[in-house]
């Protein structure tokens, strides 16, 4: 069977799993400077699903698609080090302030430009916004089916894919026709590590903007090694309508940010006696916490 053409949507996010005391600014917004930028964990798991298809079906190509500031090229390199074949960075000041609707608009235009494709894989949600909206919205805009909460791609042929979904109370196995957009759940297997040879091969991969800012002497390498070019697409490259982008294309408005400090308002001390445990069970049954 010939390979598949897969696009993996990836986002560079502040590492909210290792939050220090400077993680939030006084106004309640994320202090990106204080948090290291990382590959969104579930997107990395989506990449692993794509790599497993590539392991099984040689000839499969994986292209990462990301949107963000210039430094987001780093996650394309991270993908290349793990076995992706290429990546595209959508970047333009005009995208600044985009909410999920504006983002999925830009991403869907880019995907249309990359067509044909068999499958789009993305993480379920990003650890900075936690909306889980961009993948589904992109599928709607592209007019293709979507499968969310994927834990495992069980099998694939050129007509359909079988996917195991992780739901709150169980696992659902379903089929979908290609092309399809699949979002990958956190319970899917971890992504493989960077590969030494791929890392050494791709570590000089850069976008044009990075090359212009670079201080080392490896620029001329790009002439003989075209795979080191990471394409940058701007609003103009996507033929996007600016009114659907950035702040003007983003109906989501932050109304108010409140600092929440968790405090136990009331507490009960229980001993490990049978009576105490019985009393607790009755109480929980009565207020319908359980049962």
């Amino acid at each position, binding site marked *: 069977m010939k390979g598949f053409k897969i696009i993996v949507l990836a986002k560079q996010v502040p590492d909210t799993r*290792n939050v220090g005391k400077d993680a939030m600014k006084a106004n309640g917004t994320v202090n990106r400077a204080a948090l290291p930028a990382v590959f969104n964990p579930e997107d990395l798991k989506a990449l692993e699903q794509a790599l497993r298809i590539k392991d099984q079906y040689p000839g499969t190509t994986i292209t990462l698609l990301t949107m963000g500031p210039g430094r987001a090229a780093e996650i394309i390199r991270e993908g290349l080090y793990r076995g992706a074949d290429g990546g595209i960075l959508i970047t333009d000041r005009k995208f600044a302030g985009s909410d999920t609707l504006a983002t999925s608009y830009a991403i869907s235009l880019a995907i249309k430009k990359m067509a044909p494709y068999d499958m789009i894989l993305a993480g379920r949600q990003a650890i900075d916004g936690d909306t889980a909206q961009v993948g589904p919205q992109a599928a709607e805009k592209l007019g293709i089916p979507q499968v969310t909460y994927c834990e495992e791609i069980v099998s694939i042929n050129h007509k359909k894919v079988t996917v195991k979904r992780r739901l709150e109370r169980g696992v659902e196995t379903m089929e979908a026709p290609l092309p399809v957009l699949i979002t990958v759940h956190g319970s899917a297997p971890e992504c*493989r*590590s960077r*590969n*030494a*040879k791929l890392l*050494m*091969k791709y570590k000089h991969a850069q976008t044009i903007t990075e090359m212009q800012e670079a201080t080392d002497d490896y620029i001329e*390498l790009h002439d003989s*090694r075209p795979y080191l070019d990471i394409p940058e697409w701007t609003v103009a490259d996507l033929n996007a309508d600016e009114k659907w982008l950035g702040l003007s294309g983003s109906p989501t408005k932050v109304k108010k940010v409140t600092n929440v400090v968790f405090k136990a308002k009331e507490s009960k001390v229980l001993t490990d006696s049978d009576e105490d445990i019985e009393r607790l069970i009755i109480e929980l049954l009565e207020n319908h916490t359980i049962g």
Partner: protein
Amino acid sequence: MPNFYSDNKHLKFHLTHPLMKKIISLRERDFKEKEEYDYAPLDFEDAIDSYEKVLEIVGDITGNIIAENAVSVDLEGPKIVDNEVKYARGTQENYDALKQAGLIGMSLPRKYGGLNFVNTAFVMANEIVARGDAGFSNIWGLQDCAETINEFADEEIKEKYLPKFALEGATGAMDLTEPDAGSDLQAVQLKATYDKDQDIWYLNGVKRFITNGDADISLVLARSEEGTVDARGLSLFVYDRSHKAVTIRRIENKLGIKGSPTCELVFKNAPAKLVGSRKLGLIKYVMSLMNAARLGIGAQSVGIAEAAYREAVKYAQERSQFGKEIIEFPAVYEMLSVMKGKLFAIRSLLYETSRFVDIYKTYQRISEERTLEPEERKEMKQYQKLADSYTPLLKMTASEYCNQIAYDAIQIHGGTGYMKDFPVERLYRDARITSIYEGTSQLQVIAAIKGVTTGLFLNRIKGYGRESLPPELVFLRKILMKMTEEYEMTVQNVVDMKDEELLDFHARRLVEMAGNIIMGNLLVLDAKRNPDYEHVAEAFIKRAEANNKEKVYYIHNTDPRDIGVIKQ
């Protein structure tokens, strides 16, 4: 998200030693492969950057997978299923992760699929992996076998087996010891018989204490010359496990490194290929393999020592008694500072030795491609001699210190450290083997004493003493010079007695005195490159000075008649 490379800045410090520029340029033959391979370095800076980034991968896998699995691997261990060794679940996961990352065959040439890394970088990777799980570092470190095949086998064998390591992640084993041939490998009996018609050898006999005995590819020391009884009748063979001609009789139940399968093997007409020439098996090839393995144990020892030291510091900072953290008590902080001095000293000795090995081995390879210039030949010889004496010195010192550091790490934990709840008890058990296998400390002394009697150590020490120093380090140099004079005189006294037994009796003391001075010098030179090392150098040297004086006193006051009188 722990990373065992980037959380230890001392590794980068040693990786960027000034001599590395020469070593890497030699190894890369002035970077001539950059056109042929897309992952070959473009220049020295690019190479160092690649080394760092790849060591970060090693550190990432070790911190997040190998170290995480260490407890379950220690509990579960390997077992025999249908005459095959089945690793513990975690061991398999560790190996698969490193294989996926392309970290098998790191030092092999690129034409066989390797990374062509210098030895020093591989040794560093070994230290990192051993910090996560020492038992596992044996299995992974046995890629050394590929290096031996690369060094001595003919092209046909190399083309067949080396890509199996580098591209398919094959595992290796070196099958040397037998029930009656442990330290004395000359006594190996496993028989190799040549079948002329098929041009193949058949192996028959028993091997014992074989680490990773069910490896994909094994190097086997066997008696190929009928009627011989010594080293000259032994040859080295490569056996491919796909022949299924070896029975795994048992896996030993060990004190430590429990994840590493130690096997007893029975060879029954096992087909094998000869490596290199007949009769050179022990004399040349195994000696070389053992030296590489000893360097590997040096790295393993430093890795365990690092892990134990970290556990000890952490516990001493967290544990309060009598109203304060125990790290504040002199009895505890003295132990920690002694541990730290020893740890830094063996790490410096480890990388000094690996640099010597790198230079001479690389010249050796170059000499197969072209005639060396007289200057290069001289340098190769000089570094080979240094490597041959430093390797046993390192193996002995690093493994002994590793044991001492693990012992003290438990002591700092008190009763808690004796329990299975904390990782130090495992480190202590894992440490214990390091001064035994690949040649006991007592055997290392026999190899290293030549460095004492030939004056090689002394010359090198004087070489260190000629390097310029900033004024603030001169006081340490003065102590080291006094120690050197004392050492020179003591060696002379013992040698002048012309009594072999007396020399053997004091050999370990003399080797340790030399080691103390060498490590003291290395730490001073480290402090010259980075002032952060000054206090460690001072702490180590002051103790080393006292330690040497004790030995001198004992040597001067030993009567030859005392030797062995009360041994029973």
